[in-house]
């Protein structure tokens, strides 16, 4: 897991959707299957009992799947019996059932790679680690781009470039194909007449072992023209992005303008300090740990809960609040996503656009950055 393996991504095969479905359902004998249901921009990752329950044409989800399953909103990290002076449960070695996350878009895979740096970096978070080890990740390259996507600006999509840290990468082949010869021009429509097929790439040893053991149909190796077509599909998709921002120029430039009027004006007129942006962000990892004591004063639980830099209590310390002003809190989010690359060696945004889509007033961090660069 998490890039430790030296496994070479050399196995590529083209399999029909029925074969993929059979493989996934065999996988379901060992893993809880979790995938996108509901479709469109408001799909949700949920446990499913069959391949057909999933909608792999989905565009986005509100809660990011990586964060939802690897870094849960509320986690009891410790419980202690005061009267008996002992820990009640051994949280250091938490158990976790195996889960296959199916159909993650490249942005969400990259977000998991970012969370790996946070929770498996200098300090290992045991809760994250156990979940990460027990997750089998099947990524899916995007078929379409939404108006708010900007993954292309940070190399996080629409096709996944990372070579490790996940297990399988799927690319739906549209309108080509070797068998039927039908070419509908990569418009996003499923093939008429021809059957739906996927390019399947194995990205981990675990995936190789499981695929060879479980898949009844191994498919056949892609031909040169298939790979060329996929490159064409990617190039065509890249042309459909609406958002643009010079990320090179943003680097270190925002920090130089901490009190820019664009921040203040946006904060005053539109920022609700409601923290929706943080909640739906796939890379926001801040959390608060609080003690909750029962009224018999016999048990204490330490509870870890998602926290948000937009909340007034986030930066309150002894003696004051170092982000008491609304624009200072908004600035923290915008700068952290776009400018603090040095923290973990990669951009903290994956360009999924969720913070814009789920902001009640539609605040757009790329627009703020643009205004600040002018």
């Amino acid at each position, binding site marked *: 897991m998490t890039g430790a393996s030296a496994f070479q991504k050399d196995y590529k095969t083209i399999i029909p959707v029925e074969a993929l479905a059979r493989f996934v359902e065999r996988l379901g004998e060992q893993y809880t299957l979790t995938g996108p249901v509901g479709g469109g921009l408001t799909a949700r990752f949920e446990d499913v009992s069959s391949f057909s329950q999933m909608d792999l044409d989905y565009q986005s989800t509100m809660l990011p799947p990586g964060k939802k399953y690897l870094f849960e909103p509320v986690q009891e990290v410790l419980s202690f019996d005061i*009267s008996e002076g002992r820990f009640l449960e051994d949280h250091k070695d938490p158990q976790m059932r195996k889960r296959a996350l199916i159909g993650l878009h490249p942005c969400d895979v990259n977000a998991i790679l970012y969370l790996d740096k946070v929770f498996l970096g200098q300090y290992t978070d045991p809760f994250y680690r156990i979940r990460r080890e027990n997750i089998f990740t099947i990524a899916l390259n995007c078929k379409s781009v939404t108006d708010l996507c900007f993954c292309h600006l940070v190399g996080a999509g629409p096709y996944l470039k990372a070579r490790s840290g996940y297990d399988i990468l799927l690319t739906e082949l549209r309108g080509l194909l070797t068998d039927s010869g039908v070419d509908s021009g990569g418009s996003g429509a499923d093939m008429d007449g021809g059957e739906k097929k996927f390019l399947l790439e194995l990205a981990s040893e675990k995936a190789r072992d499981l695929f060879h053991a479980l898949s009844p149909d191994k498919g056949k190796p892609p031909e040169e023209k298939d790979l060329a077509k996929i490159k064409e599909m990617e190039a065509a998709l890249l042309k459909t992005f609406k958002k643009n921002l010079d990320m090179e120029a943003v680097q270190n430039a925002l920090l130089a303008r901490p009190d820019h009027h664009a921040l203040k004006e946006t904060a005053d007129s539109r920022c609700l300090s409601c923290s929706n942006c943080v909640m739906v962000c796939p890379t926001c990892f801040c959390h608060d740990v609080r003690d909750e004591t*029962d*009224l018999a004063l016999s048990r204490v639980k330490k509870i870890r*809960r998602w926290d948000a830099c937009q909340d*007034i209590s986030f930066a309150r310390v002894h003696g004051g609040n170092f982000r008491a002003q*609304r624009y200072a809190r908004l600035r923290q989010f915008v700068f952290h996503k776009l400018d603090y690359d040095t923290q973990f060696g990669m951009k903290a945004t994956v360009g999924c656009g969720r913070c814009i889509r789920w902001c009640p*007033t539609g605040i757009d961090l790329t627009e703020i950055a643009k205004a600040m660069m002018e």
Partner: protein
Amino acid sequence: MSFYKKFRLHKKDVHSPKEKNPEKKRVGFFKFSCCTGCGFELAYFQRSLKETLESFDFTFFRLASSAGSPEGPFDLALVEGAVTEPFQIVEIKKIRAASKVLYAVGSCAIVGGIPAIKALAPEMEVERAAYRERLYEMSSTRPHVIGDYVKVDGCIRGCPPGERDLEEALASVLIGKEPEFIEYSVCMECKMAGNACVLLEDGLPCMGPVTNAGCGALCPAHHRACYSCFGLMGQANVPALKGKFRKLGFTEEDIEKRFFTLFGALGETGQ
């Protein structure tokens, strides 16, 4: 397990039957103008009722017992309801003077709640509508939150409050620490629960983005717009949400009603 028994861990020479726990905190629960829902919530404090009674002595709680005196002294005073009559002004000051710690409980005491609706019309007009021929026997005042008259040590928000904040308040008094009350928005609870957004997906005038959490996003979880029964959170940006409602096509009258006549008419000016 009582506080006293826990304490014995460290001082083995101390012994006394649990029933006569000298460490029991004296609590007074007081009601001003409200529906008594917060009192009921405490009386039905399901998860923790037994432990509460082991650690606290409710020396005055009219809903639970007609015995007891409101005179104090109290380690903790819990006060529900808004101030709407002159005699209540005297009472709340007496309660404050007799209490070490005073927490306002529920929206009426904290932001005005339902009683605050009358702040929208001249007092006499309100009285005339309610009491008609007995008008001149009335001596009601403008509605006020508890914090307008006395210092409040903490606010247990809600309509009625959730168990989490009630428990945090009581446990803090036992431990002697600052309570950490929830201050973030309903949206945070709503997102963590994975609910669909009724504001953005359904276009409902949801008050979640400006409302103090603690309810677990109860209304949005049932596809209803939040109506801010917990009151505005401290960092609420009211003009920004009004602007959003305008864009959704709501009239100024709709919007004013949303903010001022359902709950917390004193929310922006009170406290």
